[in-house]
């Protein structure tokens, strides 16, 4: 069993709840393979630096996973087949950091400044946190 960090980008047109069901689907593959989800973060609908499959924005989700390589390969295969997933990257990490990643920190800073768009982000934030507690 090894630790991995997985980031996936979902299509811009799907809703937050759809993203969550997608992520649950993928998490099930890991847990069925004897692994576990250590951390889950929803970074929100971020604008992409360049277009991917005609999308200018994407839902970013980061998972920290403990799994063996066979399970991870299966996880990657399923994700590659899913058309709602624009891109994913899984890298090996040595340890799962306890505190939220820099993305979440940056986002909370931004939402402090206020604004309509950021309030939406906050709602997403809250729901993401809730799911991570459940997991």
């Amino acid at each position: 069993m090894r630790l991995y960090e997985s980031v996936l980008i979902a299509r811009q047109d799907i809703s937050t709840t759809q993203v969550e069901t997608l992520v649950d689907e993928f998490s099930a593959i890991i847990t069925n393979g004897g692994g576990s989800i250590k951390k889950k973060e929803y970074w929100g609908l971020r604008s992409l630096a360049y277009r991917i499959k005609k999308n200018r924005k994407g839902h970013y989700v980061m998972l920290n996973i403990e799994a063996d390589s066979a399970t991870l390969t299966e996880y990657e295969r399923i994700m590659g087949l899913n058309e709602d997933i624009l891109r994913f990257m899984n890298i090996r990490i040595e340890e799962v950091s306890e505190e939220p990643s820099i993305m979440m920190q940056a986002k909370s800073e931004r939402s402090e400044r206020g604004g309509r768009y950021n309030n939406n982000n906050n709602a997403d934030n809250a729901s993401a946190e809730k799911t991570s507690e459940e997991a």
Partner: protein
Amino acid sequence: MTQLEITRSAVRRPFGRRRKSCPFSGPNAPKIDYKDTKLLGRFTSERGKIVPSRISAVSAKKQRELSTAIKRARFLALMPYVDM
């Protein structure tokens, strides 16, 4: 090797330019992470190219780490490959 460094510093000295130390070494140096686009952005040019270490004074080891981090960030569309 050492000979070369001595002569180089001797040449530099009249202009009063000291070699800057690596921004990623030292006690409170930032950790290189592909998710930290703000930090990585400081080491890319306006066009999105990675700044050579001879200009940014990043050590060779950290420059390798930095370049993989930037490439990862590019792959995830957190940073541009080319920016106009």
